[in-house]
């Protein structure tokens, strides 16, 4: 089983450190960014198997980033982590199968399951930009 790479994007230091530590201890490779802008600037998207991103971030929210990525044709699976259940979230979640929502604070098992599911779904869909990918289903 190869090592999965996960990117954590959350403006809160406690959350970033905690999740990073947990994932590393559990055998993932983790990179963490404090804001979507920083991520867009410094990260190489192809390095990651999965993105974990917070919704509420100053200036550029998780949704904004998600929209940006999908419109750029990125097919990396995204998991939203949030402490607040809100209508927008539900709307987005329904629309796309490759988007998963985790509510903070979450159990490690839930996290690992979500990551595994997201990666498997993406692999099944392939990394192609064909019409069957989950991204295109965005509407």
């Amino acid at each position: 089983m190869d090592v999965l790479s996960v990117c954590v994007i959350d403006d809160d230091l406690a959350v970033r450190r905690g999740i990073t530590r947990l994932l590393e201890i559990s055998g993932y490779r983790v990179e963490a960014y404090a804001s979507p802008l920083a991520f867009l600037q410094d990260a190489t998207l192809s390095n990651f198997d999965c993105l974990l991103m917070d919704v509420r971030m100053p200036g550029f929210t998780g949704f904004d980033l998600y929209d940006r990525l999908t419109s750029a044709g990125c097919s990396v699976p995204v998991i939203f982590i949030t402490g607040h259940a809100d209508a927008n979230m539900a709307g987005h979640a329904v629309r796309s199968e490759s988007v998963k929502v985790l509510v903070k604070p979450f159990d490690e098992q839930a996290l690992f399951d979500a990551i595994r599911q997201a990666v498997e779904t993406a692999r099944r869909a392939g990394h192609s930009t064909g019409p069957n990918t989950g991204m295109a289903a965005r509407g």
Partner: protein
Amino acid sequence: MERRDFSTQFGATSHPVVLAVLVCAAYYAAAVVGLALRFPPATTSVLWPPNALLTAMLLFTPTRRWWLVLLAALPAHLVLELRNWSTVVVAGLFATNCSEALLAAGGVRLLSREPFRLGTVRQMAIFIGVAALFAPLVSSFPDAAVVSSFHSERYWDVWNRRVVSNVLSELAVVPTVAGAIGVAAGSLWRWRGRRWMEASVLFAGLVATALLVSRQPAFMPGNPRWPLVVFLPILLWAALRFGPEGVALSLLATAVLTLGAATHGVGPFNQQSADEGVRTLQIFLIVVAISLMCASALDNERRRAERALSERLQFEEVLSRMSAAFVGLPCDEMPRAFAFWLERLAGFFGWRDVLLALYDESQQVALAHWSTFHADPHTRLSLRTEFPWAVERVKTEGAIALHVSEDMPAGAEQDREALARHGLASAVFVPLKSGGHVGGLIVIMTPTHRTEWAEPLLGKLRIAADVLANALARMRAEAALRESRDELSHLTRVSAMGELAASLAHELNQPLTGILSNAQAARHILDANERRRRVDLQEIIRDVVEDAKRARDVVGRMRDLLRKSATERAPVDLNELVTVVAKIVTSDSLIRQVSLELDLSPHAPRVEGDRVQLQQVVLNLTLNALEAASISDHHPRTVLVKTEANDRYPIHLFVRDTGPGLIAGSEQQVFEPFYTTKKSGMGMGLAIARSIVEAHGGSIWAATGRDRGAEFHLTLPAIDRTVTQPWTS
């Protein structure tokens, strides 16, 4: 206002020996005068003051001492008359003299139940009818019998002579003696310089007229009747300016002078016309006396009515000032006003001790009270325990009077003992009734003597109590209103909290996520048991502790806002407050995608106030601004919170948003309760904010901002300005 009741006090309180000596000496002097005014060989004098003197003395002593007065006169009478006449006659004459005095004084006392005073027409009429006319008339019968049988004078001549001379004496002497007793009581010291001068002029005029009459100048007719006319103006003047006592004194002086002249053939009286002249003089003087004394009594009554009216007007003035003072008075200042007006009332009525007590909810006394107990600052009166009977009765029965003497109803013993213990003679309890509900009491206590608490006075007290009762009711209503506003403020805070619950939950979830992840990671490390991970464990534990504290702080802040706090005053840094609020609403601003900017002046001084309440105001304004900014399409969506300090406003804070702005003309209306433009919302936030800001001595207002959004400004006084404490029940 409380006139000394001198008449009975004089005779009652003086030592018996002193009284006897006084009576004796006065009788002697009067008899000397009377004996001089005679036409010998007639027994009866032209003017006989002693009987009238006795009448006056009896009227001023209590009945039980009358024997003393009459007995004291006996020696003087004997000494003088035994010289001239036989023992039998002297004894007989004394008996008739005493009978006249007894008839006169007894009759007056019987008919007029008040103490002897010639102030009203009724009293004057009783005096004239009984003492001046009836008594001499009746007592002359036996007198004439004695004289005519022993001195061979004609019965009806004697009777005639005696009646006329004694009527005149009674009329002239009794009021004069009354006036003399009044002088002894010190009423003369109340006269001012001008009055003294007037009296002196009057007296000088009298003497001058008498001399004029006796000189019999050439331009005056030789008719013995004309002196009557000449004396009239002086007597009239005395009647109108000096009352019945003044008339009587002038009359007495006139009588003595003129009758003296007549009996000794001086002036226009020669020997032939003497008898007739005297008779004319006597009749003239009697008629003049009766007329002038009635006129004087009428005048007195008018003056008294005027004085009563003037007193009433003065009271009305005090009352209207008191009412005006309480209208619109803020409730914080009411306690001071109560104390002030209590003193004014006490001063107006001349009382020393007035007390105002309030009932609490269970209608037990003395929640708070104000009193004018100057004399002894340690005097504490517990109304409920010391005067239980009065305090209970006054709730249902209106004003209750209490006296230390015996004639109080059963059940009032404890109250009476309390009165005696505090050295008081009388007290009156007046309830403060407003809208049928008794809110308190006024108690007035008099130390020296029993006060009757007559109806006119009670009426005035009730009116004053009414004013105070209404003010009290208003004070209580405002306190209740403030309490329910605090309650509502608490509820609003709770609902505002409900709005924030979502974002606060998020705030808590961040550190909790950290804690949970860290703890799970730690468990893995321990399972793996790798030594090089020890450092990691230490870091993990450190982070866990930090995150837990952060969670605790968030909960603490939430609890602060929820806690219903009494108004506390402490120095508050407004900048720090704004920073805390900004932290609380961070998540909210993110949800709404509005950027929150802070521009905090480093020079802003501190405010003295309640931190929680001020935080609520800032929170409310900021949340409103965020919500407004989020509903507009105007980009960028910002909310600015700025503090500054300048000369105009020591502390100025404003919140500006880029929302749709205020509805035109609603800048005042937004602060009214139940005004809201939100779909869900009570509309109380700004109303409560305003009442908090104003309670801190500041002001809050709304305006249209630069970029057509809304601006909410608030100013507060800096910390060295004193803020008054509201009175809390």
